């Protein structure tokens, strides 16, 4: 079946958090604690067992220093004219970036790879889903995820994350977050189409002078083989709390097994050596 996914275009995110609420209403996700975090308008903090969509709020100085891993910044904000920037003394001189984060539904998903029970599985839509009737709460997927997405709900014992609304997909419906998103910052569809659309959008933004715009997770050759849910970002990934170059841990698994085999042999050797010595 066609691979389905999300394209989250953060350049049109208004930070309304409809995605967070719509997700919770549909998936019956409990609240994640009522804590005033003092981190701009973000009082959710991060994705987790009880937050499957998380809107990050980043306040950055206009034309602020860009980290080396991001494309060069020419000091312009999305869509603002150069003249506007030159006259910026009256404005807040700040950019407010908002981005709705979600499970990436990786092509090479570490959580899925390491799950010992098959609770995590790849669906017919090429999404990665936890089967709550199977999960025994071993927790292995939690540290395996390079994005810190999946987590255990302590009150429940199992792990939870975005299912890309597996049940809705099976009923030919749009995932709750994408459906609610007022500005269609969150777009759902066949991944190929989304990538085309994203490339087009990137072109438009670049042409408009938003040179810092870039796609995150749209490359099949990245460390996780591309994301099923990818992003258009206006700053370096780490600014939004995303890893700049995530790699699926199981990529190194063969090397690990080899090292383990070596170590096992060494153990056998040592034991043999210890026992072989004449008494």
């Amino acid at each position: 079946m066609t691979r389905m996914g999300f394209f989250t275009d953060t350049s049109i995110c208004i930070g309304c958090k409809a995605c967070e609420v719509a997700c919770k209403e549909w998936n019956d996700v409990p609240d994640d604690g009522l804590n005033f975090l003092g981190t701009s308008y973000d009082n959710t903090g991060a994705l987790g067992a009880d937050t499957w969509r998380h809107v990050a709020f980043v306040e950055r100085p206009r034309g602020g220093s860009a980290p080396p891993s991001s494309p060069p910044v020419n000091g312009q904000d999305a869509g603002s004219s150069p003249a506007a920037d030159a006259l910026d003394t009256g404005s807040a001189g700040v950019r407010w970036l908002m981005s709705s984060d979600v499970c990436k539904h990786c092509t090479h998903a570490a959580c899925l790879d390491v799950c010992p029970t098959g609770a995590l599985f790849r669906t017919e839509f090429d999404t990665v889903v936890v089967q709550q009737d199977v999960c025994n709460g071993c927790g292995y997927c939690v540290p395996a995820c390079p994005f810190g997405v999946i987590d255990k709900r302590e009150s429940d014992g199992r792990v939870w994350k975005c299912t890309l609304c597996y049940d809705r997909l099976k009923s030919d419906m749009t995932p709750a977050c994408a459906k609610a998103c007022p500005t269609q910052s969150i777009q759902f569809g066949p991944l190929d189409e989304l990538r085309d659309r994203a490339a087009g959008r990137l072109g438009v933004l670049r042409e408009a002078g938003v040179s810092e715009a870039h796609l995150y997770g749209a490359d099949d050759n990245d460390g996780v083989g591309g994301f099923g849910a990818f992003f258009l970002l206006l700053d370096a990934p780490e600014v939004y709390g995303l890893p700049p170059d995530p790699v699926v841990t199981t990529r190194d698994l063969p090397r690990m097994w080899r090292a383990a085999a070596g170590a096992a042999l060494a153990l056998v050797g040592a034991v043999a050596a210890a026992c072989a010595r004449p008494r």
Partner: protein
Amino acid sequence: MTVRRLIASWPVVRQLTGDDRLGLGAAARSDRSAALVARTETADRMVKSICPYCAVGCAQRIYVKDEKVIQVEGDPDSPISRGRLCPKGSATKELVTGPSREYTVKYRRPHGTDWEELELDRAMDMIADRVIATRAATWDAPNRRTLGIASLGGATLDNEENYLMKKLYTALGAVQVENQARI
């Protein structure tokens, strides 16, 4: 037979016999996952509605099963909202079914220190008595009115409700009828 079926349903066996050798996909799928559908599909009915929060007027679809609201979705047919909802609109199900809602009349007698229970019919009767008494006591005959009864609210209510309110209040001579539009 059952044993065989049991064995056949063991994912390890499906791994060995099917295409999903690594057990990452179809082999690992549970029966529940296979049978899963959106709960809106099994709803008894869908009712068309409008979001009760701000004045944009986004269209909603209310899904009902066993006489309970089980889901509220944006209605993509709307030329205003195109199926989208903001966080408040998206929280509508909790608004109408959440644990904070009150379902019974509460009564606090003058100088009372806590709520007491009261039958709805009795409350209506008492309120009618209060209206009649206050109206009589504060009647301003030359102006055909009372300044003893005020009302605040309406912006969250239906037009039909505002209409009946204004009609009844005006007939009663109550003029201090106001709502959020003033605030």
